[in-house]
């Protein structure tokens, strides 16, 4: 590239017409070439599929018969008539709220705890982070065995004299199980992000607060939280978006049951598109999901100036 950008040595008089490949154009082209692989990836795997999903949502596509008929807004009208959609959105909301609240609180709690200069913190940090690097499906399958009626969790409870529920077979405990399995899988990541943020809070601020007579809670509330608020925003967006995309845990642990209590939106659209062969309607559900993910993201992003302190 250096070779290409070298200025040609010239001893003759300047030409009447400026060369096409000026330094500026060369720089521009070099820039485009450098981002081209990334851009091509985004176009091929994000922009084009997004457009195609929108296009498919206007069609009735029968893969077996090989028919692809334009139906206009019929699939969108079907959303309103879908008797299952209400319970699907409820399950999705329940999962997201449960996961986001538990994940962020636990991650922050662990980060504050492990930020102390105590013995063994490195071991605990590693312990909590290790599930993040485990394959999601392997992690979920193992939990599936543990959560069986005669599985490890109930055997453990039995020792303590507690008769544990049939975790994956009753509505409430099935949803709680799926949330907890996902919580322990990813809490380590948020914990590390919080830990990094906590370590960036200047010690003199705490000292000043202490001299001013602030209690431990007041120091946390008035010093720590404002200073790590950019990280809280980031982890919240990531966790909400991630929670709306949950699929593998549901597919492996409950297949949406019992009843439809754990049928979240992504699993429902998978069922509609790939199991029931309603590809057009599945695409419509994808558009709905896109909207649902977009709204909180945009709201949070717009609100950030109001409650995020110290944004660079």
């Amino acid at each position, binding site marked *: 590239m250096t070779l290409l950008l070298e200025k040609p040595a010239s001893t003759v008089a300047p030409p009447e017409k400026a060369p096409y490949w000026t330094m500026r154009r060369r720089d521009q082209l070099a820039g485009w070439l450098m981002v081209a692989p990334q851009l091509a990836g985004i176009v091929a795997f994000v922009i084009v599929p997004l457009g195609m999903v929108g296009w498919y949502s206007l069609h009735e596509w029968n*893969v*077996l018969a090989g028919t692809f008929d334009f139906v206009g807004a019929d699939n969108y009208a079907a959303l309103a008539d879908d008797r299952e959609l209400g319970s699907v959105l409820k399950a999705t909301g329940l999962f997201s709220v449960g996961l986001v609240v538990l994940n962020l609180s636990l991650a922050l709690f662990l980060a504050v705890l492990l930020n102390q200069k105590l013995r063994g913190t490195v071991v605990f940090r590693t312990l909590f982070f290790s599930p993040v690097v485990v394959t999601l499906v392997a992690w979920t399958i193992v939990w599936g065995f543990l959560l*069986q009626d005669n*599985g490890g969790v109930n055997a453990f409870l039995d020792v303590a004299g507690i008769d544990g529920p049939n975790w994956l077979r009753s509505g409430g405990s099935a949803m709680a199980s799926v949330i907890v399995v996902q919580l322990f899988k990813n809490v380590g990541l948020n914990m590390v992000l919080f830990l990094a943020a906590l370590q960036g809070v200047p010690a003199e601020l705490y000292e000043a607060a202490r001299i001013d007579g602030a209690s431990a809670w007041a120091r946390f509330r008035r010093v720590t939280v404002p200073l790590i608020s950019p990280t809280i925003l980031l982890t919240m967006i990531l966790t909400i978006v991630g929670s709306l995309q949950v699929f593998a845990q549901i597919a492996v642990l409950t297949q949406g049951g019992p*009843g439809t209590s754990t049928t979240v939106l992504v699993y429902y659209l998978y069922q509609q598109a790939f199991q029931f062969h309603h590809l057009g309607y599945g695409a419509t559900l994808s558009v709905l999901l896109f909207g649902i993910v977009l709204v909180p993201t945009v709201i949070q992003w717009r609100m950030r100036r109001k409650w995020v302190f110290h944004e660079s």
Partner: protein
Amino acid sequence: MKLRALTAAATTAALLAGCGGGADTGSEGPVDLRMTVWSANAKHLALFDQIAAAYTKDHPDVGKITFEAIPFENYTTTLTTQIGGGNVPNLAWILESTAPDFVTSGALAPIDKDPDLLPSTTANWEKDGQLYAYPFSTSPLGVFVNTDLVEAAGRPSPAQQVAAGTWTWEEAAATGAAVQKSGKGGIVVGDFDYKGWDTLNSIWAGWGARPWSEDGKTCGFDQPEMVDAMSFVHDLAFTTKAMPGPGVTKDFYAGDAAMVLTQISRAALLEKARFTWDLVPLPKGPAGEYSVVGQAGIGVLKRGKNAEAAKDFLAYFTNAENSAELAQFFPPPRKSQLTAETLAKANPLLKPAQLQSVVIDGIERGDIKPSHTGYAELQQTVRAALDPLWRPDADVSGVMSGVCAKINPLLAK
């Protein structure tokens, strides 16, 4: 200049890469064929490869024949996704439950019907008198029994009860309950796990129950015989405790259960069993003796390339000679091959008496597992509506009416 040449080369390469996928040299030279299957069993695949090799030897116009194993759990989903994505296989195994979807949609090319095929085996694969898939495996359901566990529980062996004419569901339940008291599993319904409800047809058929009417329009779950049959299943799980409850896994093949209701083709899993086992017919139900058959067909995908070559290979793959070879794994649909002698040669693990009572009698009079257009959606809807049944205090009749309320709109489609 260098830069322009570089840009031109990159553009050309990108264009070529973009267009390369569509290149097809199909019309020249031998054609390749691909069949999707759900068995990854090495012995099965070796036999298929052997038949394919013999075929390509005599057919230079056919190059390579590939058998692509797709896991059973997601078989139909993967197959239809391949079809939707334009990667259409030439031939495919098809499950009996999805037969109506494949046959009525026009996805399959019609094939010739050999007069040797039993009418009971082809009914599920026909439309307007035309056959659309070859029913290559017609596997009756039987009961594999761990005779060691039954004996240890002090119960008479099912084989003795069959001989005495007392092999009924009440007796089977008593045996299951006696074994379960010892900590092992009693009766396991293969592939059920309180989700695959359609496998329960191996029980409810004994009550004369059906999930829906013959024409597929009327729900049968709320009918008295179905309510009685499902009350019996509920009792097995929660009252008599003859069957492992929801969320409890007992593996028959590892010696952890007294009985398993499954297709006889699973006998291969017992090759290395460390217990003595037997195979008996399904117990007698209130509606008398009955049989249930699981089926699989092979169809030629109309939109796959070279459908004619695929049809020709299918005719060869399933001719009388190869069908006899395949019979060691897949019970044949041919009248001429349904004799205890022929089957005994192919199934060394089973005794002639077992083959006669379970296989031959089963295929001739067996009920085929439920099927319907839009089966996957029905399957899922019934699964969700049946979930409230799998609690000790369930109102069986109420749950069954609820199932009908949920699936009636789907049956009416």
